């Protein structure tokens, strides 16, 4: 399979075409299942085949060029795929998690009509294609193909129930928010072409790495522009607003696109372009700050949400913030590590939530759930595993990755990175606080959903059931991964051997060493300037105890006989704060009032005032009117009196004589 990587994304693309055809012919669901899930399954096999092939040979970066995609002047873009450790990691979990979610969808989407079912799998396959192009693409433009492609699929899938205005609107919102980011991304690509002459990763990154000082300024600019794209795609401040609304799509979509894969594309991009960020440290700092702020900001909103998927959505934003925080302090491998573990547990959380929603006949409001533990044990236990993972409880997957990021952030503060040590301490504090909040809201969710007594109607209660095996099997697989997934990145601290941290070791080649004499050498720098083993152990304990504290607070608030009393009192005491958080700090409203409405009004002004009245009315038709008016006045010279005409002729003769004299 290595040597023809193009087969991997092509398979889902074929599945897309087949499903479109099947949907058009209104074919049976089983056929669609074979085409839709089968193609992704084959792609997964192909991907792993390629990965094995890759691991068996010595080269660390292999670029396969197929044909010249765009070539004009100094701009050349090859249609080429690249496989390197980062691609391997991304491709491995994207195909695998993607496949599991496809399997899950068989059960989840079974109630849809034949055409809708085919349409769903068509979109999902198209998404897999785009996502694979994104991770395999060997240059920024090619990455952008996948980048926009996943955005398109996100649009289509969020708006899957297109007859619902909210769904249609949310899809559009997602696309446009992504588009805003994408504009930054393409500008970054243009700048890359202008500065380095190529946007192939294997060309411009080594050039930048070899001359860090020369390119520092441009690298900062490019890094920031690309990061604008990342804020759109990975839902960071200020473009995160689309992700909570994206929950309007079917739940497998939320799991696949809006939790596990697509939204991590931004992190992938930052890590992929780590050289650019490392030589332009201001950009890296921005990444860290945005990540840290997003982490705590989104977590705080999640606390007050009652929609189960909305909680998870804000949780995703918050976790993505962690990843950017990690990338921002130069812990690129840790960021990717968190991407992977997050893919496991967040996909699981969403699928579990989907299972719950499935059981509750589409209801997503946690206030009318409760006690589901007894009815759907598989869902409950797997969900709990994922919750422990995201809360950062040892030895679940999230513990290792999150702790790695926080530890590196603290280390950055300790080593006074870029001279902004205090800032990194603040970021670390934000991160650790967000970890507390995360543990709190996740267990709030668990208690409200699975514990206590069912609070819905009798009819709903009667309908409660465990999901079919196509849905629970992926839950179980992901549950196992959520438990053991963290072991690919056991810190050196625990084992004493750096090589036990498999993922970091594996991703080492991605972080290209910089040329000599650069002050902002981070990759090697931070780990060597770590805060010392004692402090590291302390940090570990702090984050663990913080997580446990969060769980305990949640328990005292939402579990047991006096559940919901404390929160109610809290709301009574701080009504404004509660309202602010419940309404997500009114950011949507602010955007609407400050950006959208003025834009719309301005557009109307352009049309009605500038276009219709000034340009067309006054200038264009005004000219026509003036012409008509002149004629209207001049026609009075036509008296109809022959003698007047004769006089005019005589005067004309006189005039001619005078002129010709």
């Amino acid at each position: 399979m290595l040597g023809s990587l193009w087969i991997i994304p092509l398979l889902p693309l074929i599945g897309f075409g087949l499903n479109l055809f099947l949907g058009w012919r209104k074919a049976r669901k089983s056929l669609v299942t074979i085409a839709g899930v089968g193609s992704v399954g084959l792609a997964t096999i192909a991907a792993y085949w390629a990965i094995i092939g890759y691991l068996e040979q010595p080269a660390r970066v292999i670029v396969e060029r197929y044909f010249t995609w765009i070539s004009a002047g100094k701009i050349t873009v090859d249609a080429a795929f690249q496989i390197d450790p980062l691609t391997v990691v991304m491709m491995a979990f994207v195909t695998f998690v993607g496949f599991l979610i496809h399997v899950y969808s068989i059960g989840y989407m079974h109630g849809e009509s034949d055409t809708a079912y085919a349409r769903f799998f068509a979109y999902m396959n198209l998404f897999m294609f785009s996502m694979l192009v994104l991770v395999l693409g060997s240059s920024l433009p090619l990455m952008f193909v996948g980048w926009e492609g996943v955005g398109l699929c996100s649009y289509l899938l969020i708006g899957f129930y297109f007859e619902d205005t909210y769904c249609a609107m949310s899809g559009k919102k997602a696309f446009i928010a992504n588009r805003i980011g994408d504009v930054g991304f393409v500008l970054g690509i243009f700048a890359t072409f202008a500065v380095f002459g190529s946007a192939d990763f294997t060309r411009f990154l080594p050039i930048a790495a070899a001359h860090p000082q020369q390119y520092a300024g441009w690298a900062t600019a490019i890094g920031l522009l690309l990061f604008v794209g990342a804020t759109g795609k990975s839902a960071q401040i200020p473009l995160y607003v689309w992700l909570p609304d994206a929950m309007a799509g079917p739940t497998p979509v939320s799991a696949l696109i809006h939790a596990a894969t697509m939204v991590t594309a931004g992190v992938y991009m930052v890590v992929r372009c780590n050289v650019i960020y490392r030589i332009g440290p201001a950009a890296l700092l921005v990444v860290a700050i945005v990540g840290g702020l997003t982490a705590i900001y989104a977590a705080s909103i999640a606390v007050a949400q009652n929609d189960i998927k909305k909680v998870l959505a804000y949780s995703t934003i918050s976790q993505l913030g962690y990843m950017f925080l990690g990338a921002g302090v130069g812990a690129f491998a840790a960021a990717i590590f968190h991407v992977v573990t997050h893919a496991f547990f967040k996909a699981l959380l969403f699928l579990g939530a989907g299972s719950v929603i499935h059981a509750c006949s589409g209801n997503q409001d946690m206030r009318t759930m409760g006690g589901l533990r007894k009815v759907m044990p598989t869902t409950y236990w797997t969900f709990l595993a994922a919750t422990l993972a995201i809360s950062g409880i040892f030895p679940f997957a999230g513990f290792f990755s999150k702790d790695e990021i926080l530890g590196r952030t603290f280390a950055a503060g300790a080593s006074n990175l870029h001279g902004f040590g205090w800032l990194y301490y603040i970021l670390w504090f934000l991160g650790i606080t967000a970890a507390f909040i995360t543990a709190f809201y996740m267990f709030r969710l668990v208690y409200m959903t699975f514990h206590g007594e069912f609070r819905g109607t009798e009819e709903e209660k009667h309908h409660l059931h465990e999901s079919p095996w196509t849905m629970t099997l992926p839950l179980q697989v992901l549950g196992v991964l959520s438990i053991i997934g963290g072991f690919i990145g056991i810190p050196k601290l625990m084992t004493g051997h750096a090589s036990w941290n498999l993922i970091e070791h594996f991703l080492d080649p991605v972080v290209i060493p910089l040329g000599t004499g650069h002050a902002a050498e981070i990759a090697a720098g931070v780990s060597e300037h770590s805060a010392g083993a004692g402090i590291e152990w302390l940090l570990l304990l702090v984050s663990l105890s913080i997580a446990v504290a969060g769980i305990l607070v949640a328990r005292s608030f939402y579990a047991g006989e006096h559940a919901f009393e404390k929160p109610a009192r809290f709301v009574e005491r701080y009504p404004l704060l509660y309202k602010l958080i419940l309404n997500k700090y009114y950011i949507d409203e602010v955007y609407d009032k400050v950006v959208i409405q003025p834009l719309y009004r301005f557009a109307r002004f352009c049309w009605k005032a500038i276009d219709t009245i000034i340009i067309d009315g006054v200038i264009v038709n005004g000219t026509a009117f003036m012409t008509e008016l002149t004629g209207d006045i001049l026609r009075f010279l036509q008296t109809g009196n022959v003698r007047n005409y004769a006089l005019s002729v005589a005067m004309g003769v006189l005039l001619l004589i005078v002129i010709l004299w």
Partner: protein
Amino acid sequence: MNPTMIPIPSAWILYLSAVLFVIGAIGVLLRRNGISIFLALELMLNSANLAFASFAFRFAGASATAAHALNGQIFIFFIIAVAAAEAAVGLALFIAMYRRKETIDVDRFNILRW
């Protein structure tokens, strides 16, 4: 004709032509009666004829241009022919106009105005 000197400067004839032209022009511009206008027009045509005659007369006197002397006279001939045609059509027009309005006062014919 005998080739004796005729002591009339050709300029005199031109002056006469100019005076007649002005008289004709005044007639055209100041009369309202269609037929009178037409008469004045004929006077103007004749003044032009006279100018041609003057030049024909002058060219005939100089050997270099003698060959063209006839052209002036030929032109007068053609002008007379055209004037005759014009008079025929013009007078027919006036008859037609008179039938319509019982007058040939040209100020009364102004339906072509604005």
